């Protein structure tokens, strides 16, 4: 990874040349265009459209239809423009500074997780040695931000939603970590590129089906999606911690939620489905995005068919089923690793 070297800048011409050099550099292209911001926004808007259309088909509705020529494919863009012109209401009793900065922090933090996930061997913004730990460290920020949003709103429903978000996400974080631990044992690295390279013979979903299942369930809980959408349960607590947000703030929060969906699918792909690996007829990034969309479709199907769990069952599933199963999964991973090594 080539970091930006800062040269000695003497006069204006050199400064302009330096800025042009940065703009033309490979790093800047990566950050802005290909694995970076532009690609993330395009993919996420496609995911939003796909989810709305797919859920509509499952519920025998039509779904988005008019924006864009083909089946309302530009609906997310139209929604964004609509929300841009909507009035932003900030409650009088709210903590205005925190209320306002939470959407920005949330969307930035959500997108930051995607910087370490490789779309192909070279298409990664930062090939971080501790990539997996980095993503988990950032995932741990979401419950805090949800609680902060609920607290700053100073309203009853958002506060309940924020407390629920905190509780749910700490319950499901430990199974998530332990299920990824099996992958780390098999791959012997925390770097995503190394983890994908280790899957050239077998995808880890074949070696650790239990771990993949636990990861998917725990990730659904981390994403606050149905059946684990207690923090934003519409029929119980309006919209949970999002209830007081409107206008552009709401658009940013929804964007961050769908960036999290993209991130969860991408992470599942990198950890269990062999990342960019596939027949070399098509470019590696194509395989990666295809697998990511398939995982996202699985998550959408889960959303379409399952009801919401009860709060008491949430604890039972998290602590008494998933955590114990993930400890079993660690033992299974050790056995698989020993068989693969063939040493002992």
């Amino acid at each position, binding site marked *: 990874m080539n970091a930006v070297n800062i040269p000695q800048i003497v006069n204006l011409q050199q400064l302009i040349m330096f800025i042009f050099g940065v703009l033309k550099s490979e790093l800047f292209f990566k950050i802005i265009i290909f694995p970076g911001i532009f690609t993330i926004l395009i993919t996420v808007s496609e995911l939003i459209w796909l989810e709305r259309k797919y859920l509509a088909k499952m519920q025998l509705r039509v779904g988005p239809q008019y924006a864009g020529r083909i089946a309302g494919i530009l609906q997310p863009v139209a929604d964004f423009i609509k929300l841009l012109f909507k009035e932003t209401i900030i409650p009088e009793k709210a903590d205005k500074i925190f209320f306002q900065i939470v959407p920005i922090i949330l969307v930035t933090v959500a997108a*930051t997780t995607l910087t370490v996930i490789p779309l192909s061997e070279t298409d990664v913004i930062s090939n971080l040695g501790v990539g997996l730990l980095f993503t988990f460290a950032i995932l741990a920020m979401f419950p805090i931000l949800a609680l902060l949003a609920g607290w700053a709103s100073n309203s009853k429903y958002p506060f309940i939603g924020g407390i629920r978000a905190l509780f749910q996400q700490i319950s499901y974080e430990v199974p998530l970590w332990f299920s990824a631990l099996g992958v780390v044992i098999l791959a012997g690295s925390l770097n995503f590129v190394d983890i994908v390279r280790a899957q050239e013979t077998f995808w880890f979903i074949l070696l650790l089906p239990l771990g993949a299942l636990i990861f998917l369930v725990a990730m659904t809980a981390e994403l606050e999606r149905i059946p684990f959408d207690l923090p934003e349960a519409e029929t119980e607590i309006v919209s949970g911690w999002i209830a007081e947000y409107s206008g552009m703030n709401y658009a940013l929060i929804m964007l961050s939620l769908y960036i999290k969906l993209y991130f969860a699918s991408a992470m599942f792909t990198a950890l269990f489905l062999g990342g960019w690996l596939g027949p070399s007829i098509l470019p590696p990034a194509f395989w990666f995005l295809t697998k990511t969309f398939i995982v996202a479709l699985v998550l959408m199907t889960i959303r379409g068919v399952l009801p919401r769990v009860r709060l008491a069952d949430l604890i039972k599933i998290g602590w008494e089923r998933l955590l114990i199963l993930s400890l079993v999964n660690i033992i299974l991973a*050790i056995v698989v690793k020993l068989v693969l090594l063939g040493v002992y």
Partner: protein
Amino acid sequence: MAVEEFIPILIFQVCLVIMFVLALIISRIVSPRNPDPMKTTPFECGEELIGSEEGRTQFVMQYYPYLLMFLIFDVSSMFLFAWAVAFSTFTLENNLSIIIFILVISSLLGYSLYYAAKKESWK
């Protein structure tokens, strides 16, 4: 691990923050503003407020034992990650001691789950 690896992430974050702050500013400029006392009260499904106006009420922490368990397992899983990276470089005896540690964690989990379920008040 080098510090340079984090610089692209920092640039990425700065770009995003600039982008979204701009979006918020543009939204503030183009959107209408019709202040109304009913709009800025806390949202309660369109009804008038019931009870106190303060949203930050006190809660029964039925799940406090689970929070304590989270602290223990979060830290221990960090140590397990460090071990998992170096798994293939250890000998069987060294790995066996970690496996015994995992079993000890499991028994701890069993006891704390039993204790937490006893405390639970919403059955």
